[in-house]
């Protein structure tokens, strides 16, 4: 099996878009793993945040198919602790936005069970829609 890794950031459109949308410069990340160690939901991620950043930087395929950025709720624990001051939740939001623009909404309110809709606090529904739909 062979894999192409592009070190030339000019060719890495996804990285450029993520950096533009998030306002974060991912070259600053020195892969310490503090974000992964801090994240309360890392066990449910198919790729921890530090490795997601690394794959983005290398231009590896398949980043947009990952579940990790849909698991992140933006609790800002990692952002508070990042020694390179990278706001990882902004990177996750940029990936969500790109995925939604390419593939459409991830959540359809009409498909949620009526009981769920009735019981949920409005802040849960509105927050979920803001994170999962365009």
């Amino acid at each position, binding site marked *: 099996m062979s894999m192409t890794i592009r070190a030339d950031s000019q060719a890495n459109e996804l990285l450029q878009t993520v950096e*533009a*949308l*998030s*306002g974060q410069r991912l070259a600053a990340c020195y892969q310490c793993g503090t974000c992964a160690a801090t994240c*309360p*939901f890392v*066990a*449910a991620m198919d790729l921890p945040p530090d490795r997601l950043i690394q794959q983005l930087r290398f231009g590896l395929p398949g980043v947009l198919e990952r579940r990790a950025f849909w*698991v992140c*709720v*933006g*609790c*800002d*624990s990692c*952002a*508070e602790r990042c020694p390179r001051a990278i*706001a990882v*939740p*902004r990177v*996750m*939001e*940029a990936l969500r*936005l790109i995925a939604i623009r390419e593939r459409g909404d991830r*959540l359809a309110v009409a498909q*949620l069970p009526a009981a*769920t809709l009735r*019981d*949920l*606090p*409005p*802040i*849960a*529904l*509105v*927050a*979920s829609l*803001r*994170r*999962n739909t365009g």
Partner: protein
Amino acid sequence: MQLAYYPGCTIKASARQHEQAALAILRALGVELREMAEWNCCGVVHTLTSANLIRHMAPVRVLARLRQQGAHEVVTLCDMCFNTLARANLLARQQPEQFAAISASTDSELRYDGDASVLHLLQVLRDRVGLAALRARVRRPLRELRVYPYYGCKLLRPSTVGIDDPEIPTLLRDLLEALGATVIEGHLQTRCCGAYQAVDQPELVAERVTATAAQARAGGAEAIVLSCPLCHFNFDTLQPRNGAPLPVFYYTQVIGLAFGLEPEELGLETRQIDQLPPLRQRDRAQAKGGAA
């Protein structure tokens, strides 16, 4: 003391008991909340990319209306509203050009330049009323009640808007100790409960609230005390049902109990009081004393 008040959607829907308790304890402390006219949903979450300026419209509209109504500061009970309004406010101060674009899109109807302050009720209690005044108002100290304060995310992070130390907060502990309660603490107090994942990934929330409740119980806590209506929903509905779940209370309700207010004034049902053994025993002792 009078303060403008922004309730937000959830306070008027699934968290009415929080508002009821807040208004009751503030009456007892001589603080009047004046609900804003024409408020709208704050948008709940702060938009994290540079591409969706329109999503800042909701909090900006609230802050612009506040200024139009002649107020300079606004209090909210909801942690999500607080966080979203405070971060929008910060953005208005730091990146006014973005807000100029939003204002232009409304034909300049909504002008806002970041000169209002957003306060959480906990800040009002700590910094304006003061914990000493709170302690002085206690009529029924919560002695022998063991509680686990849970902060979650939005009170503390990002630290640019947080109201306490993001790693080692003390506000809820100080407040609960002022009421006479015994406070149980642990490192999961500041770990996110999963928030809106309750909508379509509730297993993520269940895992977090289970771990946090287990830590509270292991320390001997009889109840979880918190502030955020979304954390409240998650802890109230997603703790495992195979054991007895820890009861969940808003801090406003616990303050009210210590003030000697009646449970019905605080949106509390008898069932919830029965979940707190020291209060139940005290009430029974008082009932016996009254009958004798």
